[in-house]
């Protein structure tokens, strides 16, 4: 039996029984990805997924080492083949890729990222896709649906509709026909990639000329009319206070609920409610962290809302709160707010 046949048998014996775990992970992680997209108002991003078949996994494990063709590219395929579970996110146009990328960076640990076929890397057009290798963030690994699977990774490709059409055609021609495409056909495929790239740019310009200057999917930075979601709130807090990237996403979920209680509906409402305190963000941060060095960006932002809205903050939240003793809560609110006003004043004076 040849070395390839021996390896194929060993890998097949490992992957065949293990594949159920990858299938379970695929199901759980795709739901997780869809929920993440929905919470970031990116629910119209199309999501596909697959778990490698046994034959496909074995074939990949037999890939030759490019440096030493007699050997194998993956010494330990069970750990080195990281795309056993893959997901693909398809967006309308190239300007819609960045918001998806930003969201994935916010919600997951990005182990690897590669922009294949990026415009600044290629002299000739061809395959284009953003590839990310994702792992769950620590606080989500305990979720029941990820039991015994919390450390697994998923490879996510993000590409446009046109990029996907080209990649699918190119893949079918390369791998699903009796013979590889001729040089002439390859040239025509390359030319087609260039045409589709031009088409993408033209679609974007048509959309902008129509007046729809924001991408169909969410923009990168918050605009005043933008609705409040955990994603837009995170961007807003990052813009006003900074340090949002160091704060767990769950805090932004909680702050979004608070903003709802405060009857603030969009970014503009929130900025108006800060009543100028956002211009003293540095002093407010320093005053808060003087007594609470562990206070994160959300805490500071909430403090700024309390400063800016004053009595209105308390009154609006009281309608939603289950506060046992209102007078005590009101006294504490006033005391804390007053102390912060004095502390900030001492820092800026």
């Amino acid at each position: 039996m040849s070395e390839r046949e021996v390896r194929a048998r060993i890998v097949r014996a490992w992957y065949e029984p293990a594949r159920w775990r990858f299938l379970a992970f695929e199901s759980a992680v795709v739901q997780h990805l869809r929920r993440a997209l929905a919470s970031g108002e990116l629910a119209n991003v199309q999501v596909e997924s697959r778990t490698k078949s046994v034959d496909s996994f074995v074939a990949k494990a037999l890939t030759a080492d490019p440096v030493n063709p007699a050997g194998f590219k993956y010494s330990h395929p069970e750990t080195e083949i990281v795309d056993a579970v893959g997901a693909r996110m398809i967006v309308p146009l190239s300007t819609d890729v960045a918001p998806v990328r930003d969201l994935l960076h916010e919600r997951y640990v990005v182990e690897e990222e590669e922009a294949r076929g990026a415009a600044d890397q290629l002299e000739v057009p061809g395959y284009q896709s953003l590839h990310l290798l994702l792992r769950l963030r620590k606080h989500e690994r305990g979720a029941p649906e990820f039991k015994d699977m919390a450390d697994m990774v998923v490879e996510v490709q993000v590409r446009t509709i046109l990029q996907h059409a080209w990649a699918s055609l190119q893949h079918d021609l390369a791998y699903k026909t009796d013979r590889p495409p001729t040089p002439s056909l390859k040239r025509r495929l390359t030319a087609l990639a260039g045409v589709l790239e031009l088409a993408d740019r033209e679609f974007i310009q048509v959309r902008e000329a129509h007046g729809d200057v924001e991408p169909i999917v969410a923009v990168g930075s918050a605009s005043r009319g933008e609705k409040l979601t955990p994603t837009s709130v995170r961007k807003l807090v990052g813009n006003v206070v900074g340090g949002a990237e160091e704060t767990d996403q769950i805090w932004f979920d909680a702050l979004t609920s608070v903003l709802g209680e405060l009857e603030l509906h969009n970014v503009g409402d929130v900025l108006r409610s800060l009543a100028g305190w956002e211009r003293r963000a540095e002093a407010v941060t320093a005053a808060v962290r003087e007594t609470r060095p562990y206070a994160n960006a959300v805490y500071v932002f909430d403090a700024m809302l309390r400063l800016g809205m004053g009595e209105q903050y308390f009154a609006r939240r009281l309608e939603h709160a289950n506060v046992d003793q209102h007078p005590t809560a009101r006294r504490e609110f006033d005391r804390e707010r007053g102390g912060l006003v004095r502390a900030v004043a001492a820092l800026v004076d």
Partner: protein
Amino acid sequence: MQDNDYVVVVAAGTAWGFYRLSGGYVCQPGRTFQNAGRMAFYSNRQVHGAAARIERVIPSVELSQAQAARRTLSLDPTERRVGDIMTAALSDLWSEREVQIVLLSPFHSEETVRFEPVVHRGAHAWTQNQRYARLDALMSARSTQDLTAHDGQDDEAGL
């Protein structure tokens, strides 16, 4: 009923610094302190010079970012304090788990009785868990030898 003159002295490690920062004490769920109305801290061979009033004990709560966020942003001042303590614990690299949280009068509060630290000169730690002492004894003691025997041996039952 809590006795404000009865002090549980806990073996502190990092807890003394944590109390100074957050005004709280975090330990395993369900830990009891007899009827002590105050808490003090022992580490580095001394009982540190503050007997904080035990304001509230939350015997079992999930220490997590979700709970910390919800409580810290609450309008309820007690919930807010609990959230504060949770945030401090998580930033202190406590792992997410069930814990007990004790709300204490802050170090600079009038409710916290301050005294000269009580040094310990014995060969072994004065407590590795918790012991009890009368407040007036702590205030007048020059060393742990002055804290009489009936003020309490290590209390395993509290753990």
